[in-house]
């Protein structure tokens, strides 16, 4: 059995069935997004690569846990990578050493094997633009609060302290921001 890289295909169930081609397709399609996420969280290429590999190990070994009724496969993959990235961030206590500009440490490898098709790239790019537009609609204060929680793993009180804002204000901002993201979600499902 082999998997195509058609954007409508269900890759994760195929991976759950042991389809190596599907696993490769998942890697080729999503590793760039997951790596960017991990670089954003960890701010360190070496750590990000290590965690990315761990994340794909988990994808391979727990693919049967994926439930398409609960969410998309990209969301499932992002959840795995983000969870592992935050774990790494907390365990190594590298938060204080983290670079604000993750891109500063990123080196683009010319040997990257991009096996996604041109159509995929176009679809992914369009989606990314739409996502960015959706995020841009969020008030900056809400977006910042969400990003501190999501990318840095900060608690409500830590965000409150970081932003010098009351805890209740921070909580309200995050709840409002999440509601807006949820409303925008329909465009990407």
């Amino acid at each position, binding site marked *: 059995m082999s998997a195509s890289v058609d954007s409508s295909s269900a890759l994760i169930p195929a991976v759950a069935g042991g389809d190596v081609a599907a696993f490769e397709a998942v890697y080729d399609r999503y590793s760039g997004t997951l*790596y960017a*996420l991990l670089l954003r969280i960890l701010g360190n290429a070496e750590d990000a690569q290590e965690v990315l590999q761990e994340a794909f190990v988990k994808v391979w070994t727990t693919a049967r846990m994926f439930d398409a009724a609960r969410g998309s496969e990209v969301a499932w993959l992002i959840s795995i990578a983000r969870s592992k990235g*935050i774990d790494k961030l907390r365990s190594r206590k590298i938060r204080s050493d983290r670079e604000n500009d993750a891109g500063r440490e990123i080196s683009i490898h010319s040997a990257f094997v991009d096996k996604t098709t041109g159509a995929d790239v176009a679809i992914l790019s369009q989606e990314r633009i739409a996502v960015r537009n*959706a995020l841009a609609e969020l008030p900056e204060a809400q977006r910042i609060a969400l990003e501190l929680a999501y990318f840095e793993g900060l608690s409500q009180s830590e965000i409150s302290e970081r932003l010098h804002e009351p805890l209740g204000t921070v909580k309200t901002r*995050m709840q409002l921001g999440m509601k807006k993201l949820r409303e925008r979600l329909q465009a990407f499902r």
Partner: protein
Amino acid sequence: MIAHDEAQEIAALDAVGAASADEERDLGEHLAACAECRRVRDEYAEAVTLLARGLTPVPPPAELRERVVSGEAADNVVDARRRFGSSKWWLATAATIFLALWGWRELTMRVEREKYTTQEAEIRRLAEDNLRLSQNNEKLSAEMASLASAGTRTISLSGQQAAPSASARVFLEPERRRAIVFFYNLPANAKDKSYQLWVIAAKPQSAGVFDVTGSGNATITIENLPVATEIKALAVTLEPRGGVAQPSNSNFFVMGSSSL
């Protein structure tokens, strides 16, 4: 339990990883019984990933892909899955180890069983020895009591033509009608023969059969003797093994008369 609105507000925070421990617990209790809020929770979980999906993808190094999906490195996850998912070598190895351990266990158990059986036999033998020694002790005590009794009488039997150097001494307890007889220097009896002691009252009565040791000695205890006053003499003949009802011959080895 918290209300739906509150549960959904916590679900929003939980999706971004900002719910407190108490809020997570309350949310978990609510979601366990509320399908609608579970659906909302899943939507928030999906929505928060938009934060990551808006990032510009960064291709990881090519060698990472090799390690993950097609390389030959030991930590290649696909190869690991293949090894453990489809290859059977580890099953064979595990089976071999299991059989070896099982065989070793069986061998050890067999040795232990044999050791146990041997020890059990030894215990039985010792118990039998103990019983025999106990019986001997009881017999010797009785014999000592007879020898030390004030009413014990002694009868000496002397060697006859068949064994001139033989002799015997009888310690007789008339009251208990019991006697202990010590024989000395009797010739060794053939395997198919037994010495037989006769108590001669109105007629000869068998008092028992015996074999002698290599030195020609023997000791027997006689119970239920005739009344002492009726005993006229004691004599020993050599008879077929096991003894006979009446003496088959008059070739006495030792003999003595009672002086009672």
